[in-house]
Structure formats: C-alpha cells, structure tokens
C-alpha cells in the first residue's frame, strides 16, 4: 500500500526540512507549504533524488487565515499527516514596546497555526483518520521575562493542541504536541546554547516520526527537558517572579 502524503506547514525552516526528509525517507509523498514556495525548488529536487517520492510545493501564508480553507481544498490529496512547524521568535525587547511586532509573534505562533490546524482537523475528522503534529515550545510552559510574548503564544498553541486531541481522540484522529527545547537552527544561530540541552533538527524529526508511529501525545525531544520543565513549573510563583531565567 502506498503511504499517505505528509503536509509540512512552514516548510522552509531547518526543523521543517528535517521533518520532510525524515518522512520522505520513510516513503511518504511530501507536500511542502511555505510562503514563496517556488523558491524551494532546489529542496524539492534534492528530496526527490534522495528518496524517490513525489514532492510538491504549495503557496501558504499562515497569517492569511481567511484563505486557509481554500488552501486545504486546493491540495492535490488530503494528507494523512500534517506537521505545523510555523513560528517566529521575534525579539523580546522589541515585542515589549512595539505592539505590532508583538501581535505578529502572537499571530504567527498561535492564531495562524491554530487556524490551519482547525481546518485540517475538521477534514481529518470527516474522513475519520489522520495525524496532526504541532511544534510548540517549552517556552509555553511558563511565562518568563526573557521571552513571554513568544512563550504566551506557544502556551496558547499548546492548549489548543491539547484541546484538539481531547476532541478528536474518539474520532480516529491523533494529535501530537512537540516541545523541542533548544534546537540548533537558523532561529537560534549565534545564541550560546548548552550543548546537552540542544537538539539537532534531525533529532526533532526522528522524535516526531516515532511519536506519530507510536501514537504518543506530548513529546520532548531530549528527555532531560521533561525534568527541566518539571522543575521550572514547580517553582512557587513568589520565588519564580524574582528569578532571572
């Protein structure tokens, strides 16, 4: 039986590309969705040569929520798995002062991803199958002074995914929440990240493929993050508010 297509939303990021490679290597046709999709021709060719599966490019803007329905309707095949890797970090210092910048971060990490996944969820629900994967963030587990605008949007997205999972659990549709922790990507280039806590994009891809296969709900890429976040979540607020994290 031929495998179902995998839709990658926000396909240009390092993490998204690693995920695309992983599922293509497993024999899935891949739909790469991004802004200015045409510029991903080299990626398309590369993946077709490596994995000999069909790779297609699809124009997609996560902020253009009005057209998300049209976008899904226009896909040549309804995907069996959809991975949302959309997101921008922005700069906290800017986000604090510039409300337009903050709004962009919130819309890109929460409103847009939630909108497209809602659309896909309804289609998957109707067909009684499918897996939705949302790449959220450990930053959404607790607001911190250094990135709470981004973190709050991710918190919203994490809650959305958990609600979606709850709704669809009995409908044959599976929802995976991915909390990657630090990942060595373009987004974090130039940051001084601790090596033990920092995953490579390929590790994230590996973890996602495994989570989809085994039907897992919430995955941290490096297990140590489960512990780190347990500690961070359990610090009492009156102490937490004074910490520099």
């Amino acid at each position, binding site marked *: 039986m031929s495998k179902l297509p995998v839709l990658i939303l926000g396909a240009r990021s390092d993490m998204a590309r690693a995920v695309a490679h992983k599922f293509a290597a497993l024999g899935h046709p891949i739909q790469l969705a991004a802004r200015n999709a045409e510029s991903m021709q080299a*990626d398309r060719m590369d993946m077709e040569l490596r994995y000999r599966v069909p790779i297609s490019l699809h124009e997609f803007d996560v902020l253009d929520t009005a057209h998300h329905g049209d976008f899904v309707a226009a896909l040549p095949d309804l995907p069996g798995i959809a991975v949302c890797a959309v997101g921008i970090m922005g700069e906290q210092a800017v986000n604090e002062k510039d409300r337009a910048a903050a709004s962009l971060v919130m819309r890109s990490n929460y409103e847009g991803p939630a909108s497209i996944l809602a659309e896909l969820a309804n289609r998957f629900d109707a067909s009684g199958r499918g897996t939705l994967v949302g790449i959220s963030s450990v930053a959404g587990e607790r607001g911190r002074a250094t990135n709470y605008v981004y973190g709050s949007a991710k918190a919203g997205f994490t809650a959305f995914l958990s609600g979606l999972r709850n709704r669809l659990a009995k409908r044959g549709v599976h929802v995976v929440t991915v909390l990657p922790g630090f990942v060595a990507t373009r987004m974090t*280039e130039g940051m001084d990240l601790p090596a033990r806590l920092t995953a490579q994009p390929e590790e994230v891809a590996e973890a996602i493929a495994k989570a989809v296969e085994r039907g897992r709900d919430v995955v941290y890429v490096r297990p140590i993050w489960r512990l780190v976040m347990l500690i961070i979540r359990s610090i009492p607020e009156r102490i937490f508010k004074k910490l520099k994290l």
Partner: protein
Amino acid sequence: MKQSGWGRFPVIEAQVFRPRTETELAALLDRHKSVIARGNGRAYGDSAINRTATLQTSHFDKLIAFDTGTGQVVAEAGVLLGDLIAAFLPQGWFPLVTPGTKFVTIGGAIAADVHGKNHHKDGSFRACVDWIDVMGPDGKVTRCSRDENAVLFDHTLGGMGLTGIILRAAIRLRPVESGWIRQTTIPAPNLQAAMAAFEAEKDATYSVAWIDCLAEGEGLGRSLVMLGEHATRQDLAPAQRTQPFQTKRPPRRRVPIDLPAFTLNRLSVRAFNTLYYRAGERKSGEQIVDWDRYFYPLDAILDWNRIYGRKGFAQFQCVLPLDRAETGLSSLLRTIAEAGSASFLAVLKRFGPQDSPFSFPMEGYTLALDFPVTAKTLALLDRLDRITLYHGGRFYLAKDSRMRAETLRAADPRVASFKQARTDLGTTRRFVSTQAERLEL
C-alpha cells in the same frame, strides 16, 4: 570557537561561519582578509581551519541532478559520500572512488583528491569528477573541467581548498549489481610477502593491507592483505538475490568518552594485533561482506577518534616510489617497531600511476599510521619524515597536522608550481588554512 580536524590536534581558536546561500558566502569572502572552506572536518589536522573565517559548507547539502543512464550526479559540495550511497545504491550505483569513511563531503574529497582501495585500478577521486564550480577570490563562480579552465580544475583537485571554494561538482558513480563485496583475505607473514601479494593481485578491484607495525624481526611488516570485488547477483545467496542492495545495518557504537591516554599502549595494541592477525589467518579465503563493513569499518564506531584521549592523535601517511618501496617501508617499520609507539591503525596499499599537479598519490606504496600526540611520538614522526624523504617519498596533506614547510618542499618539487598557480589564480592571500601557513603554500 575551538576548531580541530578529525585527529583533534592541533586545536585552534577560529571564527566559524555557516553560510546558507552563495550570496552569503560571497559576502563573507568579501568581508574577510582570508578564508578557508570546511566540509565535514574529516581531514586529520588543520587543513580546513582559518582563524578569521572558517566557512563551513554544511548548508550546501543538496543533490541537484542525476542521470540514470550515465550515473553522473550533480551535487553541492557539502553532500556526503554516505548521502550518495543512501540515494543511489538502491538504484545500482556506488561511488567510483571512496576513502575509508563515508562521512566526507564531495568538496573535501575533491580538495584532498582522496583515494580508495582501488587506486591501482581506477586512480584517485579525480577520475570520477567531470566538472567543478569554484568560487574565486572575487566571489565569481567559475566552472572548470579537463577542457575548460583546466588550470583551475587541475589545481583544485588536491589543492586543499587553496584555489577557491568548491560549490558543486558533477561526479560519476559506478554501476554495481549488489551492495555486497566478495572479500578475500591473504595472510602475509612479513612485508615481502605482503608486497608480493599486492603485485600478484593487481587485477583485483580493491586491495588494502592491515599491517601490524609492532611486529619485528622475521615478522616485520606482517599483514593481512584484503582484496575485494563488487559481488554480482550470481555471487549472492538466493535469499540475498531478490534484494541485492538490502544489506542489514549493524548498530552504530559510539566511543562515549575520551579514553585515558594509557588505554592504547604497546602491550594492548600488541595483544590486539596478534589476535587480529590470527583471526585473519583463520578467516583467510573468501567471504561476502556488506559495503559498509568492507569500506567503512571505522564508521561503525562513531567518534572513534576519542580512543586516543583528550590530546588527540596525529596521522602519518606517505607514499614511496615503487623502486624504493621495500627498503623504505622496512626502514619505516623498523623505526616504528623499535620506538614501540602503539599505532592502532596501520594500513598499507599499492598505488597505481598518477600524474596530477598537486595530488598526493604516485605509483608505489603508501603507508598510513596514527599515533597519540605526545612529545615522544612527535619526535618519531619527524624521524619518519626524514626516512620518507631519503627514499624519495611524499606526504598526504589531508592527514598532516605537524609537518615542517622545509620537509614538504624537499619531498615535493611540485610545491613551486602549485604556488605559482595560486599566484596566477589570485588566491594566495585569499584562501588560506593554518596548514597552508605552516607549510608556506
């Protein structure tokens, strides 16, 4: 950040950049006095380190085209040989020339003009390269081949990245019927026997010898000569024949920590060598092994470079001309055995003829060894340099981390013409590695 080659010696503080596009690459080139490209860091020493700007090509990792008729693949410089195998072996194609690790980039393979176990038959990596795109000092990209911009082509192969930044290349793969190798092991009780085996087996596609460099006296140069042929479908067991490219992968092991320096000493290596040789004697004759185990036994142990401990290790690889090979090798091996330095890996191989402007191979015998870095072994390496020079040999720059400029000049009269080509191409001051500085290239 701290940079070193695969030997983890020397360690040099260098600024590293990972450009994503040709435009970013050209901008970095424009901004810095000098740069050097770095692939996957598999050269052993400081070939791919520049203090002000080491430009890692890891984002240039795309396959561009493949011709199923001729087996020609066009790929960006950062693509690994292992990627080519993963993509094209299932379609019946294998690299024409491969070194002992599949974790080298195409750019690195071209820059070092690497060789494999088939050098005596097929030549160096150069043999499979149809053309190369090279970014020059002004950021302009030039395509070069045997017919077009031949000076650039000739000096980029083996030029250690000193003629520009290799962006992409067209290389030809060889058709194979399976992913299996028919391996024949010939025990050779001493150097003469090993060389005789190489000379007798010149028609074998692949040949290489593991050599016990702690054996002395009668047994000096005791070796296991290993020959290989790509297995045809007929050579395989019926079960393998239906899926001839499906070879099961053994689990990768990783050296988890730096082993303490005393782990590899004369005694432990001697014990290992003896056991290994005896096992080879017992297994002599023909076996079918998968491509990964045959070509890349060390790749199965990730980070094997850590077995030498924190201080790292230095490789030594020279080639001696045919007529001086036996006396020269005896002299090298005696010196090593007497010093009692434990070289865990020691490899001997017969090279075929090669005539290219700055590539390492020439007709004769090549010996490769590695030693943990200590004052004692560094002194030993200097002695080995002198013996090589005396016998008219030369050195492999991809392995070097400590040679002196005078040694290289004395060993290789081609240095002058290589430097002249660098001047003519305008690359002398623009593409510089710490190795090039040390060796005054």
